[in-house]
């Protein structure tokens, strides 16, 4: 049973790795941010599964914090880029 949960967690980690492709590719900053947000949720799920697999319930608190705090980076991103920088990074796509 625990092996199954560990395998599921591994599967989710592989998902994150696949999603990294979008971070590398872009093209916009917003795309990268979307990917980061997706990783946040996937990471939460993966931590929950690990907590079950390794039988250490306090890992759930780490998952809780991830769920609570990932939105902050997005907020910082939006607030900083909306005010000062209006340009996007890779203008060649426009």
């Amino acid at each position, binding site marked *: *049973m625990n092996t*199954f*949960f560990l395998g*599921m967690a591994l*599967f*989710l980690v592989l*998902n994150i790795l*696949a*999603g990294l*492709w*979008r971070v590398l590719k872009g093209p*916009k900053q*917003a*795309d990268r*941010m*979307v*990917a980061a*947000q*997706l990783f*946040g*949720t*996937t990471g*939460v*799920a993966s931590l*929950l*599964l690990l907590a*079950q697999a390794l039988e250490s*319930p306090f890992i*759930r608190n780490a*998952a*809780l914090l991830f*769920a*609570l705090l*990932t*939105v902050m980076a*997005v*907020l910082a*991103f*939006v607030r900083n*880029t*909306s005010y000062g920088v*209006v340009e*996007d990074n890779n203008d060649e796509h*426009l």
Partner: protein
Amino acid sequence: MMSIYEILSILFCLIGGFFFLAGTLGLIRFPDTYCRLHALTKADNLGLGFIVIGLIFVSGSVPEVIKLSLIWFLALVGSSSACYFIGNHIHLLSKVRENRNGPDI
């Protein structure tokens, strides 16, 4: 021998995993940012939801269930608002760009 709860748990976790896979594929394959946002919110939160339900089946106590559901709820709030912010951001950016390029075109 596995109990019925364990089988249910495995089932739900597999469904959750499927949704995560779908979300990741969407993130990679969808053509523009708005669509990718779509992939993020729908697939991902459903995925987390199913995995949480799956884990609830094997969890021991009521506080654990509450904590798991709280995590799911927070992730829902977090990612939906993040999506809103990002979407709003792209929208604003495109408007700024239109204004700037407007007279030329």
